[in-house]
């Protein structure tokens, strides 16, 4: 089971009223390479992978939910006090029509989340390579999001999330080495 901790993994500060940025951030909320997709992808792959790498999938999958909460916090803060007119100007008119200010699992273009974004082949190598690719794509998305805001506080939280993608990719690459080579001796290259 999971237990909730009443804190964010990393502080999220938003210093600029910018609902347009909230719209773009939704790419990492309900987008193909977003945090929801990541969490669901890894946690689902856990069941059909060698025991030696289950821990990596389990723990990175869990951390992704903390990242999803950080993105949600950004979107929440950026839209919380926005007027309907501001939301319309930000391109969130269609979102408002369907959801008011509720967050929804869709991408920056408003396309709803689908399980078709994620894969589970049951082949350890294929699944881990998908995971590595997902981390690199999420890293790239964070770069473009950092490019799109001049709020240094928001950039700071996004840079944290971008770096996590790099660490996760490192662990998945190590997981590939572990399933390639079942020796338990030290692997020091």
């Amino acid at each position: 089971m999971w237990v909730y901790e009443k804190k964010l993994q990393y502080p999220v500060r938003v210093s600029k009223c910018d609902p347009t940025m909230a719209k773009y951030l939704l790419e990492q909320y309900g987008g193909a390479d977003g945090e929801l997709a990541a969490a669901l992808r890894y946690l689902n792959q856990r069941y059909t992978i060698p025991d030696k790498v289950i821990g990596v999938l389990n723990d990175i999958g869990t951390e992704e939910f903390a990242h999803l909460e950080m993105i949600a916090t950004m979107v929440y803060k950026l839209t919380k006090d926005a007027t309907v007119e501001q939301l319309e100007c930000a391109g969130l008119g269609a979102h408002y029509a369907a959801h008011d200010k509720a967050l929804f699992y869709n991408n920056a273009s408003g396309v709803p989340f689908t399980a078709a974004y994620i894969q589970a082949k049951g082949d350890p190598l294929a699944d881990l390579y998908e995971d590595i690719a997902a981390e690199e794509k999420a890293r790239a998305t964070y770069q473009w999001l950092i490019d799109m805001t001049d709020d240094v506080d928001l950039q700071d939280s996004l840079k944290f999330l971008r770096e996590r993608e790099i660490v996760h990719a490192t662990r998945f690459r190590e997981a590939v080495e572990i399933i390639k080579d079942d020796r338990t001796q030290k692997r020091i290259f």
Partner: protein
Amino acid sequence: MSENLNPEHVSPANMKPETQKGAAIDQRYYELLEKIQVVDFALVELNLYLDTHPDDLKSVEQYNRLAQERIPLVRQFQELYGPLMNFGHAYSRFPFEWPQAPWPWQV
């Protein structure tokens, strides 16, 4: 949305700001929270590392040491601002403190 509320029934004058509910959030809240975030982040990072390096004794020791260090930090925070975890992983005063604001995305 607040601008659509009938001002005869609800006016800003008789509405308490939400920040007045629950434990008061002060500068110390953020400082203590960040101390926990610092240690917990290192624990996450070491945990992922140890998932692929289970035989690294020094890192296991560092992990256990940090797990010890987080205990007093969490205790201090919870005494002032209420439980950090639900489902019995933290004690509660009366009335039940867990559902009280603020939630992480609100602060």
